[in-house]
């Protein structure tokens, strides 16, 4: 593996409250190469905040600090808003959770995909239309010309999420951050969407950060996994060895999941006191 695409050291995100500033991400460090990294944790563990802070999407009064937040040699924290805009979408892009809320309801699908290209490249209009069409085909939408004329409310959730992936991949970024990309979708569609994303990411040799609360899913689609709990990385492991995880939190999460061939009478419940005291 060559030099890492993304280097993060001691990343902290904090928000002010009446009781003073509260840190939601408490000094995490990791690097990302051209690989698939999964970040798992429960709600409130800071996993989404980590994803957002890479793109500097956390607004005041939230505050992001880090000893190091570099993306292929660029110090992300030192960039101006204008310079950030040139990075967002073009070089690092993000797939959000729910297509219903993240697609623009008053723009056609075609216009939204084209927008990503118009903003970041200077291509003739015909070329843009052609690339948008190819991209839709790449996410396995059979009739791209028809779909490009539709509005977000006219398509299904799974299709919406594929459109969003198309939109995010069409400028050919180096890193894709997918924040719970399929939790709004059905199980059967989930696998389909993730397979498509996986294939595209691998073919283009991109870096992927997959943020999810679903351990199984992350283990299936990632090479490496970070487990987060209350703002800290509690465990890092190779995806295939998740079942041998050692931290009590990870073990607790794994045990709390019902299995397909469930025989246990009750499910073990997390005993949070075990590690929160330390």
């Amino acid at each position, binding site marked *: 593996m060559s030099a890492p695409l993304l280097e993060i050291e001691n990343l902290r995100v904090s928000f002010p409250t009446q009781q003073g500033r509260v840190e939601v991400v408490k000094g995490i460090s990791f690097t990302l190469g051209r690989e698939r990294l999964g970040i798992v944790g429960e709600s409130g563990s800071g996993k989404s905040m980590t994803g957002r802070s890479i793109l500097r999407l956390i607004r005041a009064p939230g505050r992001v600090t880090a000893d190091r937040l570099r993306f292929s040699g660029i110090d992300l924290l030192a960039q101006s808003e204008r310079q950030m805009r040139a990075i967002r979408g073009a070089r690092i892009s993000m797939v959000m959770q729910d297509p219903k809320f993240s697609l623009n309801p008053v723009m056609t699908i075609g216009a939204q995909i084209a927008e990503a290209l118009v903003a970041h490249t200077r291509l003739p209009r015909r070329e843009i239309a052609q690339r948008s069409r190819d991209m839709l085909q790449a996410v396995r939408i059979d009739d791209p010309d028809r779909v490009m004329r539709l509005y977000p409310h006219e398509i299904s959730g799974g299709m919406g999420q594929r459109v969003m992936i198309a939109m995010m991949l069409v400028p050919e970024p180096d890193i894709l951050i997918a924040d719970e990309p399929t939790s709004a979708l059905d*199980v059967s*569609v989930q696998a389909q969407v993730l397979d498509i994303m996986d294939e595209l990411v691998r073919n283009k040799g991109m870096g992927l950060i997959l943020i999810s609360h679903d351990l199984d899913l992350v283990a299936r689609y990632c090479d490496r996994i970070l487990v987060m709990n209350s703002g800290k990385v509690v465990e890092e492991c190779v995806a295939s060895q998740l079942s041998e995880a050692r931290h009590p939190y990870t073990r607790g999460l794994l045990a709390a*999941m019902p*299995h397909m061939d*469930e025989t246990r009478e009750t499910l073990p*419940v*997390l005993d949070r006191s075990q590690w929160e005291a330390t």
Partner: protein
Amino acid sequence: MSAISLDNVDISYGDTKVTFGASFDVAAGESFGLVGESGSGKSTILRAIAGLGTTWTGAISVLGKPRRQGIDKTFARQCQMVFQDPYGSLHPRKTIDATLGEPLQVHGIGNRGNRIEAMLEAVGLDRRFRFRYPHQLSGGQRQRVAIARALMLEPKVLLLDEPTSALDVSVQAEILNLLKRLRQEQNLTFLMVTHNLPVVSFLCDRLAVMRHGRIIEVADVGLLKSGKLVDPYSRELYQASGGKSS
């Protein structure tokens, strides 16, 4: 006598037909899972049984009594529903006490204070939560309140619409354990809608798989556990949920 029985039920929203000839029986004391993807009509069936704003033809009976369209009080005493999203199903400006007291008030049942306290204890919530508002509670605690509300009238049948899909895994485990315990203690019948097959495996005795408004397979949960569902679509669902191919 079966607790819930559907015979050839067609449900429609306006002119759009959603289910086609749905028939199944749930025995008293049984826990029955209804699975399928969104739009397959599984929640609609629950809503029709509960009498929530759908029109249907065919025959639905609950505890031996035929259902008519709409809600009636005697039915509400016997059959209650728990909804998916605890953030949406509790009134934000009512205290937990008011939320739990309302069904008692509607049905003119006295001794409310004691009943509420007993129910809070049964669902594993501390007494101090009684005079709080939903926004002061976590998702799991809210779902406990929603379950408590459904049980206030001591119903025999509980309709569960994705009771844990809005919750974290660890909280899901707590709620699933709670449901299982309550079912044993109060001898309840569950009809649970979910898309999560492992949850069915944990909580249900039998399941029905739905697709495009039709019930395509009714099976014992043992077949699910061993991955021996018959219908090709059921198998597809099984594999998409991470089941090992057999």
